[in-house]
């Protein structure tokens, strides 16, 4: 009889927090015994003990009712985590596939196409898994260090809600993603600066074959990326775009497009024309870098221009488009 109670208490204890385990086990043992004494007096049979234990419920169930809700990432942080994960699940495989294609173009692979495709898929999968694990780990740390994503504990004021389609509104996820991607890009560019050019192999001591790149443009692209990171951090803190800030963002993006031409398009396509005469014989093969740069600049201007015009025309009135309540 005692053996069955012990077996039950032991099973409950397996799921209890170590700090409280001994105390809860002792209390549970005494509670079961009280119930057995009251109901059966003397020595209850194995079946009678079993029926009392069945009333207590499954060991796991009773153990969890002793502990408060436990989770790795709670409901308050979960939507933020999923938002970042969804961005990453699109972006990370795309970057890996791009890097692999870039690598294959620059240094034609020794292995067959099938193996190259399998390698690309596997490395994209691996990078996505690592990315997901890091994001979940970061959020778990935030959850268990009791930090809050939005540290400001200001009371909610509906009057502060931004206008629908207000050009001043800062898309915080976009800004944070921009900072993260910008930081990654700056690190890659710094690496290229250190090894003297482009290479898909990220190894400082053995970078493999390097395509030379004008150092001045490489340096300028690092400066413009750093500028964009700083600007986005500033915007995040200010939580509002101004016309001047958006103009600075647009200009930095345009500088980035020009840098991209000198740092990436020109050296890579030049190498491609030399490596593959078939590619060189294609129309626009010698100007493809310029075409890409001009297209990127047009897309950038069209994308940012409308917002810039709206910010500029609305900047005449310095007051926000809603009434700000004053205390007292």
């Amino acid at each position, binding site marked *: 009889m005692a053996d069955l109670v012990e077996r039950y208490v032991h099973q409950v204890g397996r799921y209890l927090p170590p700090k409280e385990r001994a105390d809860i086990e002792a*209390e549970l043992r005494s509670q079961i015994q009280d119930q057995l004494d009251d109901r059966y007096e003397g020595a209850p049979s194995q079946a009678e003990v079993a029926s009392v234990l069945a009333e207590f419920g499954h060991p796991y169930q009773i153990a969890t*009712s002793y502990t408060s809700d436990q989770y790795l990432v709670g409901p308050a942080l979960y939507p933020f985590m999923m938002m970042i994960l969804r961005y990453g699940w699109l972006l990370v495989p795309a970057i890996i596939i791009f890097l692999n294609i870039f690598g294959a173009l620059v240094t034609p692979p020794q292995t067959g196409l099938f193996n190259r495709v399998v390698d690309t898929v596997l490395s994209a999968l691996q990078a996505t898994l690592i990315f997901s694990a890091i994001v979940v780990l970061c959020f778990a740390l935030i959850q268990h260090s009791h930090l809050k994503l939005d540290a400001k504990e200001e009371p909610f004021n509906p009057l502060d809600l931004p206008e629908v389609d207000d050009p001043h509104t800062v898309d915080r996820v976009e800004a944070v993603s921009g900072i993260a991607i910008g930081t990654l890009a700056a690190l890659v560019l710094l690496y290229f600066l250190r090894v003297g050019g482009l290479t898909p192999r990220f190894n400082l001591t053995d970078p493999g074959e390097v395509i030379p790149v004008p150092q001045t443009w490489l340096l300028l692209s690092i400066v413009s990326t750093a500028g964009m990171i700083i600007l986005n951090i500033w915007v995040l803190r200010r939580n509002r775009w101004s016309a001047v800030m958006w103009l600075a963002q647009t200009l930095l993006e345009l500088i980035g497009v020009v840098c991209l031409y000198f740092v990436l398009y020109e050296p890579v396509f030049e190498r491609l024309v030399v490596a593959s005469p078939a590619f060189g014989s294609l129309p626009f093969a010698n100007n493809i870098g310029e075409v890409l740069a001009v297209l990127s600049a047009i897309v950038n201007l069209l994308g940012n221009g409308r917002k810039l015009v709206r910010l500029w025309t609305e900047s005449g009135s310095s007051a926000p488009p809603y009434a700000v309540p004053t205390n007292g």
Partner: protein
Amino acid sequence: MTESAEQINQLRLELRRGVVVLAVLSQMDVARYGYSLIQQLAEQGLDIEEGTLYPLLRRLEKQGLLESEWEVGESRPRKYYRISAVGREVLATLSADWFETVKMMQGILQGENHG
């Protein structure tokens, strides 16, 4: 169990959840151990499962509403719980709220607009 019976059961559980805390606090002027409290409440018509009551006692203790002490002088060691000073204040407030809620709900459920 049919779907609606299951739904009623779930809603009944939700309805009882807060009441159980109030009922437990109201009985803790005298030091009691878990099983004696189950019996005490059952005698007054409130049946609480062991798996609900025992963890609740510990939770209320963690919140500072109950105090506990192991009694080792008896045939077997038992943990006795008793209401704390904070618990007494909470009980007074919750009791007042309860009577007000009952009055209000009676008005709502038996009022002219009901049904």
